């Protein structure tokens, strides 16, 4: 009897899909870990990492006066390596004025419009990517702490719901690939855990820089879903969930990704 039951249990176990469910904190790995040694070397060497060109542009913009107020970022914030240390590891963060979370790009644009009295920078513009790359670099090696603020709880929960919701004509959820099938291959490419540690990134396939929002939109289009608009509340909620899911992981921006 007993042996019979055990046998049935073993059969059932064998029939279960492999590795369904969320990734244990100790098992989390950055996209860096999945890369070839060549791509890792490119990211590790600042003279070879194309993302550093964007950081350099960001440094120029940081010190350039702009807008009707004729102020530069440094006029208010001083040395970026001091004032922005750890900032990216905290974003998306709660913005009291709008009572919503905002991501780093939106924070930069609030400074543009409110303090510099200049027009906001367009999503994915080289200027916005440059400034966020410069700021993100100041969090290199620091643990992600975004999401600690209790006021973010509803947005994180919304992001989590979206992460697990199947969508698009292919009817596949983020979690189906990045929780359940990380380490496998979608056609030629390795599927990673979708950790947001390195944004903005230089992506070899794009031959250019891109934000986490651009990456997420790419995945949404991949499953033939209507991608969220840049800066939409649901987009920020997904970014926030990804960051809270990566809580404690070390930032490695600006990263290189295949």
């Amino acid at each position, binding site marked *: 009897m007993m042996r019979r039951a055990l046998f049935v249990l073993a059969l059932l176990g064998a029939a279960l899909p492999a590795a369904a469910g969320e990734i244990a904190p100790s098992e989390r790995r950055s996209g860096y870990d999945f890369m070839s040694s060549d791509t890792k070397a490119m990211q590790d060497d600042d003279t070879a990492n194309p993302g550093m060109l964007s950081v350099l542009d960001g440094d120029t913009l940081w010190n350039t006066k702009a807008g009707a107020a004729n102020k530069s970022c440094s006029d208010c914030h001083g040395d970026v390596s001091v004032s922005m240390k750890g900032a990216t590891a905290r974003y998306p963060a709660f913005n009291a004025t709008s009572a919503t979370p905002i991501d780093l790009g939106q924070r930069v644009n609030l400074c543009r419009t409110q303090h510099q009295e200049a027009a906001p920078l367009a999503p994915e513009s080289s200027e916005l990517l440059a400034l966020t790359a410069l700021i993100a670099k100041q969090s290199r090696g620091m643990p992600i702490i975004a999401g600690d603020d209790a006021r973010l709880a509803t947005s994180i929960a919304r992001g989590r719901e979206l992460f697990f919701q199947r969508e*698009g*004509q292919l*009817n596949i959820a983020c979690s189906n690939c990045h929780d359940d099938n990380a380490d496998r291959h979608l056609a*030629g490419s390795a599927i990673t855990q979708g950790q947001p540690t390195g944004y903005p990134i230089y992506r070899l396939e794009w031959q250019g820089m891109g934000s986490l929002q651009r990456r997420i939109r790419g995945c949404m289009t991949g499953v033939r879903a*209507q991608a969220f608009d840049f800066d939409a509340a649901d987009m920020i909620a997904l970014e926030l969930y990804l960051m809270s899911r990566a809580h404690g992981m070390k930032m490695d921006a600006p990263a290189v990704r295949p």
Partner: protein
Amino acid sequence: MMPSASRLIAMIIAALPAATVAQTLAPYAISGDGIPDSLTGQPGDATRGLALVLARSSTCILCHSGPFPEARFQGDLAPTLAGAGSRSTPAQLRLRLVDASSINPETIMPSYYRIDGFARVGSAWRDKPILSAEQIEDIVAYLASLRE
């Protein structure tokens, strides 16, 4: 002579594919764990079926590998298609393609001949099945030929 603007617009509209109109699916009957009858009433063409399986737009080899070494990038999210025709009957293969979720609700394999029950489908793909009835039949004919 230039046709009038309104005539031009009428001509353009007439030339548009019916894509903007929701497509109706051919009716089919599930019997047991399969769909016994061809969706088109005709047998499919296995050679076209192979080409379809390999085509990126069909998405099969994003997840599956199979007995086609010429395809460079094959996925490993799903079992190999090699021997699919020995493991399943054409009726079972047809239902698997039409709506794999009716066999296994948890599956990640898309439903290739279904248009409802999806969230946020992009406008380019809305109200259309991933594959046409004819394409499904071609793929069924190809898969049925994969024996081991």
